[in-house]
């Protein structure tokens, strides 16, 4: 989830206004009143905090009240907000085009040329021996020379969809949100466009995504087997993967 949107969920209510407990004007006023009108924090905890304000300084009481409200605010972070003014965090920027029909230039959704070169190199080093179906040098040469046509763009999207999330974020200068976003977009493009046109490249792209999916399921199954107890054979197999 984007950090800004995460903060919005804590600080803003459904109407898009600042929650009273975080509004400095309102919270200062409420410290001196009873906590009956404040819905968010648990009453008993808040009442305790306010009672302590009678014993200590106003500043200490304010800090305690703020801590209680902050803790309660963190519990509310799982609530899903439906306010249309708020940032939509889980939808990729290309969400709308997914429902449009043809004539999308999928090349515009590819990452930059230098990043594509790194992805291709990483594929050749770390993935190719598992799925040796593309000529490595020809792939790297085509990426370096910037060869672009619809079929090869699909193959590149497939490489990005599978490989990008396994690369070191510091080497590709992307944060986890951006990696997730790009992976999602590229996977959607391959799943949508690879079945429309029958060509060698579309099959190459589709098979790579299928390979990733099948082996993710297999590894999940292996992990679950280990969680529920398994033979030593299964665990030797896991380490050998």
């Amino acid at each position, binding site marked *: 989830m984007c950090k800004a949107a995460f903060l919005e969920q804590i600080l803003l209510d459904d109407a898009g206004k600042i929650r009273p407990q975080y509004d400095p004007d309102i919270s200062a006023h409420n410290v001196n009143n009873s906590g009956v009108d404040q819905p968010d924090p648990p009453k008993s905890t808040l009442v305790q905090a306010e009672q302590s304000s009678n014993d200590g300084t106003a500043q200490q009481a304010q800090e305690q009240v703020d801590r209680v409200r902050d803790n309660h605010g963190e519990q509310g972070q799982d609530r899903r907000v439906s306010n249309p003014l708020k940032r939509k965090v889980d939808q990729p920027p290309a969400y709308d085009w997914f429902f449009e029909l043809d004539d999308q230039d999928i090349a515009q959704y590819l990452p930059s040329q230098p990043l594509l070169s790194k992805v291709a190199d990483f594929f050749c080093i770390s993935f190719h021996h598992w*799925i*040796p*179906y*593309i*000529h*490595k*040098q*020809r792939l790297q040469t085509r990426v370096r020379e910037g060869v672009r046509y619809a079929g090869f763009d699909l193959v590149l999207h497939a490489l990005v969809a599978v490989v990008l999330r396994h690369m070191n974020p510091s080497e590709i200068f992307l944060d986890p949100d951006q990696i997730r976003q790009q992976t999602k977009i590229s996977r959607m493009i391959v799943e949508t466009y690879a079945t429309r046109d*029958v*060509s*060698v490249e579309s*099959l*190459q792209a589709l*098979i790579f995504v*299928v*390979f990733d999916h*099948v082996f993710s399921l*297999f590894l999940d*199954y292996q992990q679950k087997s280990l969680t529920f107890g398994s033979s030593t054979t299964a665990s030797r197999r896991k380490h050998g993967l």
Partner: protein
Amino acid sequence: MRPIRLTQPPHDWTELEERRRLFWVIFLLDRFCSISTGWNTSLTADDVHRRLPADGGYFTREEPVTTPYFGIWNKAAARIGRSLANVPAQYNEDDPSAEAAQSMGTGASPNSANGYIDASKLGAFAYCVEATESLSQVTTFFLQQKITWDKEHAVSWLTRFKELDLRLVHWKIFLPPKW
């Protein structure tokens, strides 16, 4: 009458080998899914007549070589109770389509003229295909051959068990020392 052609013929041997490897990756995925789930395979003997992939070194250096066709069992011929001597050999050079040879292009190597099957150009990928097919046969045998313990069925079942075991031992013995 000819089957419809969806792609252009390959320009050279490397492109042909890429397409061949793509097919064998799909084959491996099909066998893997069948083994994992216990379901039937999708690619059967009737669908498959392809040369095995060449060793990775030849592929990387773009050096054309000829590899043998891979003999996949026909389920009817390999039914329990029938000897495995009747199923296709592991390697064969029967090419039912002369057009397949013509479509290979200028960079492709010709078929073997005297029928000698040369398996020396095979590499890890080809042996992985063979091992996966053996695993699929064994899994199918255990999953789909119902055992009724009358004498005739028990003898057939045990005979098939021994034949499969012998084929695996035979395959392993004839693997190149490198593998």
